[in-house]
């Protein structure tokens, strides 16, 4: 079926081209290779397909029997609420530090306005890609190992995560600016920093604010689980209750997380729409 689809797409553009044959063959070969890899994966990982389909009813059953009813008394506890607030603080701090660090890195990593193509550009790209490639939980574990348990490690892990996340979006935004003002500022003899402040920043300020808010939103999502690996905040409660198989408490914590993440998402979406309207 997939093969047919690929040809359907190719057809309108190349329908009368003589060179349709090699292209279609390559597509077919790629499809076959992907399918073979998928089949091999299923065999290699020893996956029972009936268990895949059974997983969802099973999940529903477990949720209904073990996790229900959620122990709401546990999440109204003062200590838990305190940890929620600390999670929020951690996400604000990590998001802020990450955004602050990622703006200069994105400047280096934007091909059109970077300071130097040879050193600065690869450095910026590598810093952003490196932060992005490693999952935030791995960062948390690494920071916990070096700095000890607690929110310092969690905040730093979130900072690195935000550098990767925001840095890429910032760099993409910078690469799409109008180069005219940059040229004008260069031609009045402005220094690179002045060019950035006067010609680049005004063009991207609104977009950057939106990205920063979005980054906080995503950082908050990540902050709810960094505690699971010793990074501080509400994740620690999740780990404790999971390990002690207190499923009803886990359910309550999960509900709180979902509610908070939804609130954060709605809030950030509303703010971003407001800011986009300010253009």
């Amino acid at each position: 079926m997939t093969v047919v689809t690929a040809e359907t797409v190719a057809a309108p553009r190349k329908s009368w081209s003589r060179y349709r044959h090699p292209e279609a063959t390559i597509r077919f070969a790629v499809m076959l290779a992907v399918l073979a890899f998928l089949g091999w994966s299923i065999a290699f990982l020893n996956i029972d397909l009936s268990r895949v389909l059974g997983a969802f009813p099973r999940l529903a059953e477990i949720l209904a029997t073990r996790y229900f009813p959620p122990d709401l008394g546990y999440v109204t506890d003062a200590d838990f609420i305190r940890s929620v607030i600390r999670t929020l603080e951690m996400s604000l701090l990590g998001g802020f530090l990450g955004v602050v660090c990622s703006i200069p890195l994105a400047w280096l990593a934007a091909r059109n306005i970077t300071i130097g193509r040879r050193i600065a550009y690869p450095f910026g790209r590598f810093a952003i890609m490196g932060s992005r490639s490693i999952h935030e939980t791995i960062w948390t574990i690494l920071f916990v190992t070096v700095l000890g348990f607690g929110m310092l490690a969690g905040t730093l892990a979130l900072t690195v995560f935000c550098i990767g996340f925001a840095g890429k979006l910032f760099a993409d935004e910078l690469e799409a600016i109008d180069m005219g003002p940059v040229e004008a500022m260069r031609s009045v003899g402005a220094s690179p920093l002045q060019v950035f402040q006067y010609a680049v920043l005004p063009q991207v300020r609104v977009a950057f604010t939106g990205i920063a808010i979005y980054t906080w939103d995503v950082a908050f999502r990540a902050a709810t689980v960094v505690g699971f690996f010793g990074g501080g905040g509400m994740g620690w409660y999740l780990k404790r209750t999971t390990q002690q198989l207190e499923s009803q408490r886990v359910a309550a914590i999960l509900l709180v997380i979902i509610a908070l993440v939804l609130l954060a998402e709605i809030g950030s979406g509303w703010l971003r729409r407001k800011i986009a309207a300010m253009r």
Partner: protein
Amino acid sequence: MSVAAPAVSEHGFDAWVAHKRGRRINNWLLVAAALAVLGWCFWDTIMVDTDWARMGGALGIGGTLERFLWIDWSLVPHLIVPALETLMMATLGTLLGCVLSLPVAWFGAANVTPSKYFFYPVGRFLMVLSRSIHEIIWALLFVGAVGLGALPGILAVAMRSIGFISKITAEAIENIDPKPVEAIRAVGGNQFQVMYYGIVPQILPVIIGTIIFEWDINIRRSAIMGLVGAGGLGLVFFRQMAMFNYGGVTLVVLAVLVLIAIGEVVSLLPARP
């Protein structure tokens, strides 16, 4: 050459500065308030919570970091199978995520949804739900449901992918050009033919791009699934951490970077003309 500065009374320097000052003070107040909040966050989370004494000062941190730098290359042969598992987990998870995204996108696209009042909100809610639950939590839930192994990892990755894929797909469906659809209807196509010839070709490029993008992200997600009981590189990471073999930990991190780099290269291939 020189401009004799004339006293332009109404547009003069003082009037302009006075006009600016009000706005500037407001801006600084805003900045000050934000900095105060951040300062308090800093105090409350980092200064109060951190056990500075246990950290062992710069020397202690330096010592730990040094242990990370002695990379344990002897581990390389033991990483190949987990790396392959991680890659497979990501691929199967993405595939399953795509399959599950189809109905969600269908429900959540305003112009093709079967029912505006029931299925549309359901689709939208599923998109948000999938994204708001972290992959670690999904993995925990599925480990509880189907036991240890690669399967909960695949399911977790799939569930987490639904949100993004179906959201982009739904948006692509909402933005299609209605004229080809009309044309297929006009030649007498049935509902399936309309979808297959009118809608799918229009959204396919966007969807393929999105799937490859998501696959790339899923590689890094599957690399941590081992931390909560699914296999792959995460499991090796966890074991090396438990053995305090920090050189091995660094090697696992490097292996993840290599996988991601491979993913980047592969994801650039279809973009080439």
